[in-house]
């Protein structure tokens, strides 16, 4: 199993949460102090450097118009890590291709970072979370189509080396596609996608040999998603070899009490406030789910999980915390419950968790948890080509 360090680079220094109606989309930037922001950016990047020395891979993401994530351009943070780290792989999870709207510019940037890092890049593509629709003003009913047209175009651009090609698609039109540079890895870097219920996208990802990742979901749901992936997985011989990834919030402490205190700080992320109109824009989820929303049985993907307590979240695998042995046990239990998986994306930092405690938790994890889970077996292709190997 590969383990990836992750922080969303939060800016938690806000007025009391109960005085704010939202931390996303419409929170005025007068609440952002550039000097504090500068310290935070550098601190979070320092933590990636420490993670690199400790044996973690690196995951970065981006969001927009939100205090929960100062990383507004994952290619920028990945480029910094490409130059400053030496060992770990770097996964952008991901490029919001539906919202950014220029798959070829993304493909170019990824190829450049892949070259600078000498082939350490994993390239994720994401549809974008609901509230992000508003910052990008993307039509929420078309994000899945935009995502897949963008991914397929980027991959084609990475793998076409002999002459320019023409692409007149639904969302992108270019008449001379001819990427410079080409990626360092061949045929192209591992591709990841994320999802939380769209089985069509999981099957597309699995059939193309891409990694499928899901975040902060209860184990039964993750099992259903990973089963869908495994049943459609075709090993396309890509670097990394496909597979599945899961992200929990993780805190490892010297004692149970210390670990619980750390976990309570991490769940700041889960309680981040968003006004209701930004949680489920029309068409973001299918009509059937919106029928449930009208019946009051669905209020956005992660709301129910947020409302439950820490103990429930630990039972579900969404937050993993404890002493090193306890954390290793929770990971193995989750692994067994979901039928195995390949990448553990550990959100080791969130909210107010300060530098010293982040590094402490990270170090304990690397030295005492990682050795206990590293050898967990990888996903096998559940198809003829895979079975024959």
């Amino acid at each position, binding site marked *: 199993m590969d383990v990836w360090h992750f922080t969303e680079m939060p800016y938690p220094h806000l007025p009391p949460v109960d005085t704010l*109606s939202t931390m996303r989309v419409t929170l005025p930037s007068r609440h952002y102090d550039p000097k504090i922001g500068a310290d935070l950016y550098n601190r979070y990047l320092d933590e990636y450097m420490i993670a690199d020395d400790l044996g973690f891979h690196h995951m970065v993401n981006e969001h927009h118009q939100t205090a929960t994530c100062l990383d507004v351009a994952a290619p920028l943070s990945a480029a910094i890590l490409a130059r400053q780290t030496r060992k770990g792989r770097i996964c952008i999870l991901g490029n919001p291709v539906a919202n950014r709207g220029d798959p070829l510019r993304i493909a170019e940037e990824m190829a450049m970072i892949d070259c600078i890092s000498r082939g350490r890049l994993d390239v994720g593509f994401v549809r974008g979370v609901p509230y992000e629709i*508003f910052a990008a*003003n*993307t*039509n*929420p*009913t*078309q994000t899945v*189509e935009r995502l897949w047209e963008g991914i397929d175009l980027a991959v084609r651009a990475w793998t076409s080396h002999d002459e320019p090609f023409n692409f007149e698609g639904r969302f992108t039109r270019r008449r001379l596609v001819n990427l410079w540079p080409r990626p360092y890895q061949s045929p192209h870097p591992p591709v990841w996608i994320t999802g939380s219920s769209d089985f069509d996208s999981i099957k597309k990802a699995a059939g193309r040999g891409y990694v499928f990742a899901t975040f902060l979901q209860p184990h039964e749901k993750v099992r259903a998603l990973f089963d869908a992936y495994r049943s459609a997985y075709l090993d396309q011989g890509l670097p990394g070899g496909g597979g599945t990834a899961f992200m929990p919030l993780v805190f490892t402490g010297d004692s149970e009490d210390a670990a619980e205190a750390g976990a309570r700080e991490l769940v700041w992320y889960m309680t981040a406030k968003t*006004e*209701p*109109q930004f949680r489920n*824009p*029309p*068409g973001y989820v299918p*009509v*059937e789910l*919106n*029928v449930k*929303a*009208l*019946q*009051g049985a669905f209020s956005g993907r992660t709301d129910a999980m947020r409302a439950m307590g820490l103990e429930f979240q630990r039972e579900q695998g969404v937050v993993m915390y404890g002493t090193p042995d306890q954390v290793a046990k929770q990971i193995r239990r989750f692994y067994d419950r979901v039928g195995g998986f390949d990448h553990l994306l550990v959100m080791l930092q969130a909210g107010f968790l300060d530098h010293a405690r982040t590094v402490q938790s990270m170090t304990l994890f690397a030295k005492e948890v990682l050795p206990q889970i590293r050898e967990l077996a990888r996903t096998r292709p559940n198809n003829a080509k895979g079975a024959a190997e």
Partner: protein
Amino acid sequence: MKVSGLELEVERRGRGRPLLVLYGEEALERDAPVLAELAKDYELIIPSPPGFGTSERPDWIESPDDIAYIYLDLVETLGLRQTPTLGCSFGGWLALEMATKHDGFCSKLVLAAPYGVKIGGPADRDIQDPWNIHPGKAAELKWFDPEKGKRDFGAMPERELTVVARNNESFARFCWDPCLHNPKLKQRLHRVRVPTLFVWGEHDGIVTPDYGKAFSRMIPQARFAIVQQAGHYPHLEQPAKFLTLVQDFL
């Protein structure tokens, strides 16, 4: 019925000469007294746009401009000529998209607070964005009496909720960006040559009466009327006043 290869839901109701009714984004008109009253004097022809009601929504239909071509095919198929037409909110915009292309289908247009044009500059918010504002605030902007806008979704059968969810999704599909207007429409409105009545709620907070007045001035033969104690749906909040205006005009 099948129109240009597309399955469209078309309701017909009432007796008399035909009246084409293009309902609004929430389709609240369908169960409202205003249509029940009109059905006493007219045969109402009430199509559901692609993606609304049970009408099919192919991917290529992305805007009111696209829907207008489907609707022009529809009126042709139905043989409607010189038919009075009522369009409410989003439906009013559709009626104008149709009429700018070919106004032979209608004799007169009644438009209740239509969207469709942008009047101010880039930093002006001409049309309140229903997707960006808190639902409670949106209801206040939309209704003179927000109580009237409340709907008991818990009591609705799944079939009806499916229609509500489809309508919501399709409205966003067609109108998200540019938000509730077609930048070209303003340049085409001179082509609407039939007598047109704009009816506006005095307290419409989604599109203000000033917006309505400016909009109406873009059409050569348009009149503008205000309904007191009404918001964005004057025909739903004050059906009697609205019907008086409509009957006088038609």
